[in-house]
């Protein structure tokens, strides 16, 4: 038991929360100063903006079949038209909404389950811990792609709910492991003992003492889950799961594939939504890295001041 002797003096290091602005202020400042965070936030911001103002940005009704099919890009049609005569650009713009929502909603739900299972396992301990771990491991090990294909085959036409369900079921287990580990390490922190000794109830301690100290990990897991959701949604929609009449980048890919877009000479029909999926995924990934760097100064790039 090593005795760390501490000075009667606050440490000089960069603190985890600075000034009276609390968590939000620090977060804002951190996002701006870190390059990766800035890039990720900007991209997300752009997509959010587009999805909110889709009606204003898109020149045409995305469903409208009035145009000539398979037109190349031009002033009238920035990205050309689909094999059915729809404006690709308008479709792309309107699809942003659902793609973004899917990522966020599935991400949040998966994270919520991760937190519930992971933290409970750490706190209940004993037999419950073993059972919940087993549960987590089973889901961790299930091969996602075959599962998705099987579900897609049975649930064709099942709609967005099924889509989200599949993403969440396959996406929660990874985070649960990490959260359990962190919750276990927090268990022995003295401020938790202090809370117990002053008479707090277990539920209060978990909700208000443990979870707030896990926020950075929870956010990181959410970002990871959102990234997974973006790619999984695209993949599932591509093979026909979800409502194919929905406007989403993944469904655009589905229709493009059905109409043999690449062979028929309208590669933009595939490239445009594909690129958007990649960029949105990259935005989440950048934010994820940035979060790690912000919460762990050791990971920050060393910029020498000369």
């Amino acid at each position, binding site marked *: 038991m090593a005795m760390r002797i501490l000075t009667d003096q606050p440490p000089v290091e960069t603190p985890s929360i600075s000034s009276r602005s609390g968590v939000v202020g620090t977060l804002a400042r951190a996002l701006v100063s870190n390059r990766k965070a800035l890039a990720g936030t900007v991209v997300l911001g752009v997509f959010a903006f587009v999805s909110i103002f889709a009606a204003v940005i898109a020149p045409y009704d995305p469903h409208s079949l009035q145009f000539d099919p398979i037109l190349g890009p031009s002033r009238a049609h920035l990205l050309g038209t689909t094999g059915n005569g729809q404006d690709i650009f308008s479709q792309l713009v309107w699809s942003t909404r659902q793609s973004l929502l899917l990522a966020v909603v599935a991400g949040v739900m998966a994270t919520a389950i991760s937190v519930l299972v992971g933290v409970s396992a750490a706190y209940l301990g004993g037999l419950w811990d073993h059972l919940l771990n087993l549960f987590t491991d089973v889901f961790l090990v299930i091969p996602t792609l075959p599962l998705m294909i099987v579900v897609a085959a049975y649930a064709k036409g099942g709609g967005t709910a099924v889509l989200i369900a599949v993403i969440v079921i396959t996406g929660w287990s990874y985070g649960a492991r990490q959260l359990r580990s962190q919750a276990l390490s927090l268990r022995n922190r003295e401020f938790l003992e202090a*809370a117990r000794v002053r008479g707090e109830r277990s539920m209060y301690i978990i909700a208000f003492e443990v979870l707030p100290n896990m926020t950075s990990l929870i956010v990181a897991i959410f970002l990871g889950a959102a990234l997974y959701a973006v790619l999984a949604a695209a993949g599932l929609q591509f093979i026909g799961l979800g409502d194919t009449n929905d406007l989403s980048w993944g469904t655009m890919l589905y229709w493009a594939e059905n109409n043999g877009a690449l062979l028929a000479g309208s590669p933009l029909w595939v490239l445009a939504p594909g690129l958007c999926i990649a960029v949105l995924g990259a935005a989440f990934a950048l934010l994820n890295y940035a979060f790690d760097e912000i919460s762990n100064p050791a990971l920050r790039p060393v910029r020498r001041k000369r």
Partner: protein
Amino acid sequence: MKTEPRPLLETVSLTRHFRLGGVFSKRILHAVDDVDLAIGAAEIVALVGESGSGKSTIARLIARVYRPTRGEIRYHGRPLSAMRSRAEQLEYRGHVPMVFQDPYGSLSPVYRVSHGVLRALKLHRPALAKSAREQVAAELFESVGLSPGREFLVKYPYELSGGQRQRVGFAQALACSPELILADEPVSMLDVSVRIGVLNLMATLRRELRISFLYITHDIASARYVADRLIVMYAGQIAESGPVEDVLAHPKHPYTQLLLSAVPDPRAPISLPASSEVAEPPRVVSPGEGCRFRARCPFAIDECSVSTPHLRLLRPAHTAACHVAASDVADLMPDTERAASSR
């Protein structure tokens, strides 16, 4: 030692075991075995021992973090196990709070330092309105030396120094008119020049507010500075207990003597080198009968391997658990003065 008709808190055969390994393991760690101790009103009792001696476990047993394996704890004569209702338990927690060792770990980093005090007030004095709570919290901060109280209420832990954080811990403990504060190594992780301030605070609280302390430490010198009585623990059992000056001047248990000889004292003349001591305090896993110190004891006799010694009164108010010390044969167990001259 004051002879109170009924002590504030006493333990009777307090025992706590932990099972090592899985659910089916046979290895039992005897963290605390058959401990009888008593703490009176407005008394500072120091519980001294090395790591693994069980002193922190006792604090946690009294704080109801662990439940005893055997034995009981009585508060004002009433066993803790009889406190079933949440109200009773809360009341006990308010009267017997704990101060922790690590100033950097005992406050949640995401909340302001007033969080713990305000929550304690909310739990134990629910009748107070929010603004009244804040007023009381500010006053508590002032009383532990964090002045101005109102300014400190809104700070975050990282803005305070180690010594200041420990004072916040004391403010939290004071929130509910405590009678006994369990202080688990409150100064071990502070710089030397800061420790005195916190120890003086404890003495002041005892003097002004008549609060008792169970001061747990491995540092005998600080125990002497602040405590009235000293209890020395070894391997989960009490080795010696008595008024602090008497125990230090006339240590009866060989372990106490060993501890005292090992404490470097800057003001004492350079002492003669003691015999090289290579063994360490044991982690007591499934021990049998017999004195747990016998492997390291220079005075061990056959009896020490056969039966576990119990605390016996050897001097006024001063007990020790040692067969040799208790025996009437004086030449087997010379007093410290004689031992020093014979080396």
